């Protein structure tokens, strides 16, 4: 119990720290590495919530595939050119942005920081998931109840690949 709290507080603090470092670093490579740290700490939180499948997917898809693509693109677009210009613009616009962000966070926090949320409880408490097997039950849902969204996701990925190839092709 106390161990869970320690892990939660450490990973939450690291998630906030790495997100703040990500938006303030000048070098985009540093931003990308801090974002990987943020994704890994969110994966730790997923395991703490008892959702192992999505934690592994987070590490493989976000921290692995997407961030690899982003770092590859940053390397392709030379970092030196990006470093020369001032990447943070401080002015009236960013002050307004900060105020709007604080207001948005206040709104979101006031709507989620409640003891009880409305709605009915579902049929998968933690013991039942452990009994059925955490991966088996997700696979079962993806193949039965959510078969259409699952297939549509594959179509989305296919269209993404084709679109990327068409966009990146050199014009003749």
């Amino acid at each position, binding site marked *: 119990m106390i161990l869970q709290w320690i892990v939660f507080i450490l990973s939450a603090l690291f998630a906030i720290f790495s997100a703040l470092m990500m938006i303030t670093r000048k070098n985009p490579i540093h931003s990308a590495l801090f974002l990987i740290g943020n994704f890994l700490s969110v994966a730790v939180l997923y395991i703490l919530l008892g959702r192992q499948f999505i934690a592994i997917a987070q590490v493989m898809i976000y921290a692995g595939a997407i961030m690899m693509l982003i770092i590859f693109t940053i390397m392709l677009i030379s970092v030196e050119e990006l470093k020369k210009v001032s990447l943070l613009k401080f002015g009236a616009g960013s002050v307004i942005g900060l105020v709007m962000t604080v207001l948005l966070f206040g709104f979101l926090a006031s709507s989620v920081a409640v003891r009880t949320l409305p709605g009915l409880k579902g049929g998968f408490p933690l013991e039942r998931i452990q009994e059925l097997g955490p991966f088996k039950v997700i696979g079962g*849902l993806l193949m039965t109840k959510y078969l259409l969204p699952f297939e549509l996701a594959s179509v989305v990925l296919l269209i993404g690949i084709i679109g990327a190839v068409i966009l990146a092709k050199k014009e003749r």
Partner: protein
Amino acid sequence: MIPVSLYMLLGALLFSIGILGVLIRRDAIVIFMCIELMLSAVGLTLVSASRYYNGLDGVIVAFLGMTVAAAEAAIGLAIFVLLHRTYKGIKVDEINLLKG
């Protein structure tokens, strides 16, 4: 058990940090990374809601969101490479011509 509202507060905070990054940065790749951060924060909120409601629907929605994020990364980064060929360095406030 750790109250689920703490996870949701963390998700809201990460989402707000992502929006702040979108607003104050002018480098398109960092703005793109901030959007990924916001998507991940929404995933955290969905999964913590699935824990609260004892269901697995939130996990599946978060997983489908991840696939959309992967497709978006492929297309967005292709657009950045294309923009880099035209503009040499991608600052969003310098890209102001809406023609080919």
